């Protein structure tokens, strides 16, 4: 049987950063269902936050101010010690990335350039034009190549094996070989990303199904704050490709069908640069009021920035508009609408990235430390992935150095692999049944209807009922093709089972939380309620169904106050 000290699942920024943070003395491998450079981190555009104070108008910036903005942006649901850790480590992290070759854009004096972003008191977001995720992912991958890190590309992890409340191994499906592979592991870091494609409209890559989060939940690991789903204000109408917040950071306007910069009616002080939850809600409210175009979208207008600035700072955005919408933002406004973008919640871990399951760690979007609370600020997700990916690699190494005792588990691992194979065979033998791609489309519609930008008890309850029907339909799923190698039907089939769990936890957490906070807006409870709800939702799986408990938020120097922008 294959055997590793540490398996890192996911080859995006968090996974690569974990691999670089792990002690090279251990036997480590990165498993990813796609080649690491195809991970969704590559699509991040606008930038990464750190209080470098490089610009004259940002000279007074400090990591404390960064932490304060992060906590305020989170609607006070972030754990303040974790947010402080993130912001403190941001500065050396950027300089290390620079030393590793990240081609950041520069100021005239040669220092790393920074731009304003929503909810930030200073221009704090470091960037490389509008392809920051792309250049960071390639930079970390290059350093991983330099370190000769082992990659198991195009392997989908399907199961987590637990024995005596300890992680002992994983099962994977090797797509190129078309075989199921049992693997022994002393420690595992999940860096599997978000679940964006559980929603109908999402900026996320097609591969972001959230299987990793659901898999952890099925293995008994609690999920935290899953009801907090970020909707990005500006995504290309129809395609929902991200139109970076940097477009507004560089001075872009949001304009409704009446030609009005409507943010004046919502956040007159910060206008377009309020945090994402507020801007997304404002846009949707305008559309719902009939002030949108075709009742579907508003305009993101960049024309006044001028051709030169657009070409220099937002070339990727322009390229996307030309190729995917047939318009040039130099001459025409961009039709935009909000869409799902990010998952604040995730696998319950502490600030060392350790989960309650011994030997199991998680980092990046699949995890919830929590530093983003109820709403993440733009520019903090790349940062979180890299900083906490690194911490996860370090923590797992400390755990391994402690010499976890042998608990065996080979029998459980082999049995689970056999069970998966026989389940796949039986699915294969069916001649009729449900097509998994169509079940996935049904799930997306369900989640967008039930748990979108605006929520209330009746729609959330109905969502839970419909989800039970989908669960039932999934039992009749079948595989159409003679599918062995590169069977994407099987990939979605395995992930769908986990996605249903993720969907249930989101809906249930949202139904129970009877207040409005950050991204979670309840029409029937439109006010934040600190007395009852300044706490994390923790949902754990049991034989009788999900068990909901709550945990206090760690408050530090920043006392909760009304959030005004």
């Amino acid at each position: 049987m294959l055997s590793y000290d540490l398996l890192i699942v996911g080859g995006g920024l968090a996974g690569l950063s974990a691999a670089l943070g792990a002690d090279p003395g251990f036997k480590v491998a990165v498993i990813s269902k796609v080649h690491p450079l195809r991970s969704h981190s590559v699509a991040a555009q606008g930038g990464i936050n750190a209080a470098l104070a490089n610009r004259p108008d940002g000279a007074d910036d400090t990591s404390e101010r960064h932490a304060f903005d992060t906590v305020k942006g989170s609607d006070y649901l972030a754990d303040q010690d974790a947010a402080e850790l993130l912001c403190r480590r941001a500065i050396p992290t950027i300089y290390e990335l620079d030393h590793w070759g990240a081609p950041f854009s520069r100021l005239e004096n040669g220092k790393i350039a920074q731009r304003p972003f929503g909810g930030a008191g200073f221009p704090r977001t470091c960037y490389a034009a509008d392809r920051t995720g792309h250049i960071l992912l390639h930079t970390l991958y290059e350093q991983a190549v330099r370190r000769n890190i082992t990659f198991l590309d195009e392997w989908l992890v399907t199961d987590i094996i637990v024995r005596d409340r300890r992680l002992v191994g994983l099962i994977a499906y090797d797509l190129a070989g078309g075989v199921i592979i049992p693997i022994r592991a002393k420690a595992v870091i999940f860096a599997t990303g978000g679940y964006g494609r559980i929603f109908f409209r999402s900026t996320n890559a097609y591969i972001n199904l959230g299987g990793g989060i659901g898999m952890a939940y099925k293995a008994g690991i609690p999920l935290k704050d899953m009801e907090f789903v970020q909707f990005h204000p500006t995504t290309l109408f129809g395609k929902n490709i991200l139109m970076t917040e940097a477009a507004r950071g560089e001075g872009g306007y949001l304009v409704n069908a009446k030609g009005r910069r409507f943010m004046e009616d919502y956040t007159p002080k910060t206008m377009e640069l309020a945090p994402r939850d507020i801007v997304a809600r404002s846009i949707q409210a305008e559309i719902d009021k009939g002030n949108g175009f075709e009742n579907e979208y508003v305009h993101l207008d960049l024309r006044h920035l001028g051709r030169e600035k657009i070409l220099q700072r937002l070339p990727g955005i322009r390229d996307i508009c030309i190729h995917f919408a047939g318009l040039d933002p130099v001459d025409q406004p961009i039709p935009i609408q909000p869409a799902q973008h990010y998952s604040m919640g995730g696998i319950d871990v502490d600030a060392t990235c350790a989960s309650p399951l011994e030997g199991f760690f998680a980092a990046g979007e699949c995890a919830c430390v929590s530093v983003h609370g109820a709403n993440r600020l733009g520019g903090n997700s790349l940062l979180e992935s890299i900083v906490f990916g690194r911490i996860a690699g370090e923590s797992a190494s400390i755990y391994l150095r402690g010499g976890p005792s042998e608990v065996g588990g080979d029998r459980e691992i082999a049995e689970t692999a056999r069970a998966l194979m026989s389940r796949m065979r039986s699915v294969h033998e069916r001649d009729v049944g449900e097509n998994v791609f169509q079940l996935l489309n049904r799930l997306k519609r369900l989640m967008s209807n039930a748990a979108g930008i605006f929520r209330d008890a009746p729609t959330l309850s109905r969502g839970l009922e419909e989800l039970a029907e989908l669960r039932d339909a999934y039992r009749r799923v079948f595989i159409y093709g003679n599918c062995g190698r590169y069977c994407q039907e099987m990939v979605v089939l395995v992930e769908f089972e986990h996605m249903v769990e993720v969907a249930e936890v989101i809906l249930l957490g949202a139904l129970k939380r009877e207040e409005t906070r950050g991204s979670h807006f309840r029409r029937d409870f439109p006010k934040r309620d600190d007395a009852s709800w300044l706490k994390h939702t923790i949902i754990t799986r049991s034989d009788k169904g999900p068990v909901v408990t709550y945990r206090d938020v760690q408050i530090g120097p920043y006392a909760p106050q009304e959030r005004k922008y």
Partner: protein
Amino acid sequence: MTFKILRFDAQTDEQPHFQAYRHEPEPYETILEALKGIRDHQDPSLSFRYSCREAVCGSCGMVINGRIALACRTQVSELESDEVVIEPLPNLEIQKDLIVDLTPFWEAYRTFEPFLQAAGDVPEKGHRVAESDMEKISQYVTCILCACCYSACPVATRDRRYVGPAALAKLRRFTLDPRDDRPFSAVERADGPEGVWGCDTVFRCNDVCPKDVRPADGIEGLRRMIVAGKTKRLFRRHP
């Protein structure tokens, strides 16, 4: 519309064959969306790589009506044809349908140390780099390693030793970066037919690149750099 898609499973089939599907695309539908539509509603066994659907992850290079391109970046309407023929990238073994084995491409990528080698420790306040220097490498850092250039390159087709355009463009990116401190000898490793002299300058790589990287510029730049470096050394030896 008719979509003729190449089907093949290296494990079970002797020969690839084309399978035709009828599919009516929506306005602004991309080839990738069409493939997904066909897979989701007609034939779930159809295999192809995909991820970001916005031309930044590099997964979906293929041959569309004879042209190498990213499926996600190609609009069905721009083909101006009632029939679309879709084949996997040439120059690489087909594994399943539109999925090819990229192992030779990734091995080539690793040939010339594709990582920045800065001198010393991380400077406390970061490196100082002129924006004009970053602009010089910007065309190369746009590369998404989709392997379109590798597939289009006639030299890579006939000579397996040649690393191809992407690997050389990557090396050029590092040699132009003022933070990189690799010795000339490391660059000189590309001084041969498997490196910069393999290119026969027909610029197919520049033509097919979906990100306008212009890898041939990089190869040309490396050639000049290598010739200049060797000349300088010659004069140092024989003053």
